[in-house]
């Protein structure tokens, strides 16, 4: 009667859709495939994936899961279709290893290109690109061109600092790095100092902080390097204004360098297409793919000699911090607790 769809027809239609989905997932064994589980939005890596398929004929299937990717692979266990894990932030890479959903890869091609600081000593994960966590400074109101992370806690910035949630992945790693440099007590003091300088409660993403600078809410903010390029070079006129309102200062730790993080790869423990996965990993450090990746995502290429995106290059030369990121990963839990303790997000 008034039911909008005929029950039978609806079922039939639904079953057809389900059948198609089932068919595509089960018939996959017929051709060469690679199943990628990624915490990065696949659109970001699509240019590289397309190129890979063109070169090798291997069909790439992807699933994008922001949170819970490791749990899913672990639960799927032996029958998991996952071959390769792509994720950003050392925290996620280390978590994947801790969860036992990765397996080691021994590859000269990878080890030759990727500096030891940006891969797991046992070969469970490999960084393929870097991003810096840097300071966005108002073009209008901030004149200095150097800054330390420590200075963000200086009272001279009172009411002038913006940042996204302290519990966000990117900030947790930055705070963990601060713990690695200064110890827990000093890091907590620093965090409280930054908190006292905040212009508003942490919220939004990194772009919103640039927007707040444009709006005059604050003078300096913390954000990742590639966002600046995405804002300035994107096709959105409003975001262009946000990107143009700020200068990027590459901050350093006192006695250290700029905090960088990786986006990386890991081979899944029960990868059904292991050979294809390793082929892809090695492809990711080739000149061609490093170039595509650097251009499309505005990340720092991991391979020496690859051209950095002009917007990113304009920030000046990156002097990456010297503490191995695997060490930083171990301090993440502590960092997360410090954020709560300092009431940073309150």
């Amino acid at each position: 009667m008034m039911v909008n769809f005929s029950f039978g027809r609806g079922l039939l239609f639904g079953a057809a859709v389900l059948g198609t989905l089932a068919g595509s997932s089960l018939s996959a064994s017929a051709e060469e495939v690679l199943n990628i589980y990624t915490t990065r939005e696949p659109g970001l890596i699509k240019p590289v994936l397309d190129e890979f398929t063109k070169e090798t004929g291997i069909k790439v299937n992807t699933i994008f899961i922001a949170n819970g990717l490791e749990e899913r692979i672990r639960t799927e266990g032996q029958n998991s279709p996952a071959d390769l894990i792509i994720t950003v932030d050392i925290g996620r890479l280390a978590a994947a290893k801790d969860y036992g959903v990765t397996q080691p890869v021994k590859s000269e091609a990878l080890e030759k290109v990727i500096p030891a600081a940006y891969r797991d000593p046992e070969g469970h994960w490999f960084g393929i690109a870097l991003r810096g966590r840097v300071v966005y400074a108002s073009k209008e109101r901030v004149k200095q061109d150097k800054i330390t992370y420590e200075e963000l806690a200086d009272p001279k910035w009172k009411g002038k600092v913006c940042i996204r949630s302290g519990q966000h992945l990117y900030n947790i790693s930055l705070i963990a790095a601060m713990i690695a440099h200064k110890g827990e007590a000093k890091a907590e003091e620093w965090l409280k100092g930054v908190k006292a300088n905040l212009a508003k409660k942490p919220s939004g993403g990194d772009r919103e902080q640039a927007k707040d600078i444009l709006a005059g809410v604050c003078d300096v903010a913390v954000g990742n390097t590639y966002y600046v390029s995405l804002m300035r070079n994107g096709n959105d006129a409003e975001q262009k204004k946000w990107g143009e309102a700020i200068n990027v200062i590459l901050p350093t730790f006192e006695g250290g360098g700029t905090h960088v993080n990786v986006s990386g790869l890991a081979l899944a423990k029960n990868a059904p297409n292991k050979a294809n996965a390793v082929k892809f990993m090695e492809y990711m450090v080739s000149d061609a793919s490093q170039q595509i990746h650097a251009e499309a995502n505005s990340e720092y290429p991991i391979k020496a000699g690859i051209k950095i995106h002009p917007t990113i290059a304009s920030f000046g030369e990156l002097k990456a911090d010297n503490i191995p990121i695997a060490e930083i990963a171990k301090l993440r839990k502590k960092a997360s607790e410090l954020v709560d303790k300092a009431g940073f997000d309150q």
Partner: protein
Amino acid sequence: MIAKTQTAFGRSFRRKAQRLPWWLSAAVALIGLLVLLPLAALIGIAAEGDAEIWPHLIANVLPASTIDTLALLAGIGIVAGSMGVTTAWLVTAHRFPGRSLLVWLLPLPLAVPTYITAYIYVEVFDSAGLVQMALREFMGWKSRTDYWFPEIRSLPGCILVMSAVLYPYIYIAARAMFLTQSASLLEVARTLGASRIKLFRIIALPLARPALAVGVSLALLEALNDIGASEYLGVRTLTVSVYNTWLNRGSLPGAAQIACVMLAFVIGLILIERYGRRDRRYAASAKRHRTVHPVPLLGVRGWVATLLCTMPVVLGFFLPTAFLLRETVRGSLFDQFNTDFLAHFLTTIGLSVLATCAILVLAVVLVSAARLAKTSLTRGALFVAGLGYAVPGTVLALGLMTPLVGIDNLIGTVWRSLTGERLGLLLMGAAGGIIIAYVIRFLSIATGSLSAGLDRVSPSLEDAARTLGASRREMIWAIQIPLMRPALASAALLIFVDCIKELPATLLLRPLNTETLSTLVYTYASRGRFEDGSLAALVIVLVGLLPVIQLVRSAEARPKVAESPSGSASGSTKPGIGADGADPLRRRPVTIEL
């Protein structure tokens, strides 16, 4: 002698009616177990860890986030509750300019997902958003510090955003209640000279209480389930704490422990609310009421009513939709409409339709069984069915994964031993997991709606059928299902809309290369390019709109159909449910019970 036989017959009859056939009992038990599955898994995960997270949580997190959570819930309860009840009362009991149009418009925000609204409100009202930039240009202000403007990324902002899209839950329930209940009471009160305000306070509000309770609790559960909007707007709810414990401190067991405590809290609230209403009967008697006769509001009063009812629609529907349209046009996103997009669209519809059908079947089984016999099994299963909605989507998905993969691996092992081939994952690999998650999460909408629908039907109908010798099967097919049909339709529509909007469980359980419209929007948003997902978001709203419109149409336009001489279009002139031509919401209850 004769009298004695009759008593004996009556007794045995009643006893028989209390017993269910074994297959029905088994089905009821299985459905109950299905819903309990992820909860059991969740408790299992929680038990894996020790209590090490609690000292830190109690010292540093829980005080603030509990206060934030309670403030958020209280705020939404008050704002969305008053929006829903006021508008429902105005359009039901009064006549004012635009009323007949507003009756159509008021439920529309139901089609707009909360997280999308949060993003839109930030784009529009934030420091460098459209409104403030325009204001600055107009007023010549230079910086944010030159003027005061309410902060959208804040607790009040979050309450506003969520209330704007959640109030229809209360509106729909309250309107159904006002329409079916209050005519005679109201008229008596009016005759006795009660003022309009007093009518509302003394008669309407108390009558709306069950509807208010049901609507508000649905809205609050939605709010508690949310992670995207509150995190983006800078509100640290307990749900955010669950995420931090899980993701930043690598403690899934710890996160599960917090989730369990929250769940216990929610169940406690549901029980208290039920207890509070234990002795009251709000259901309509089998006798027909007259509908409320709307009183005209003249002059300024009428326009104030128009304004009051327009505001929620603007906030919850027109503003988000207009923004999405603007972005779609501005970014020329129509190019995105290709075969991939069509495939995602069909996946979304297919999954939602399948899940809706499955839910309806299961709900009919549950409710029919409970109607045939109020045993502890049927009552228990109905209560358990209500819990699914209280479990946040991500938690549900995490809890479901283990049992799903368990089943998959079992099938896989058998397959391998039979054929020697590796089968892979069947349920997880083919979206079976998503459908099961939808079923668990939204089953309560159907059982609530159907129970409410059946409760309004006098048991004398079934008694008559029984006396005439109908078998149980005939009772279900010939009496109960036709009686439930109007409720089935409205439940189907609500569930369909909810399935289309569902994000967290879909995200976590979908197979490779599979996107729905909501995961599509999410992928754009997580790239920091929310605007690029405007087309997908717009399609979600539009697809959700059709069922909502259908819901309103079937509820509002019915009297005309019934009044038409043929009456054939409605097809509902069966005894007991149609024929009176009064307001249809009585026969088409959209009340949702937990």
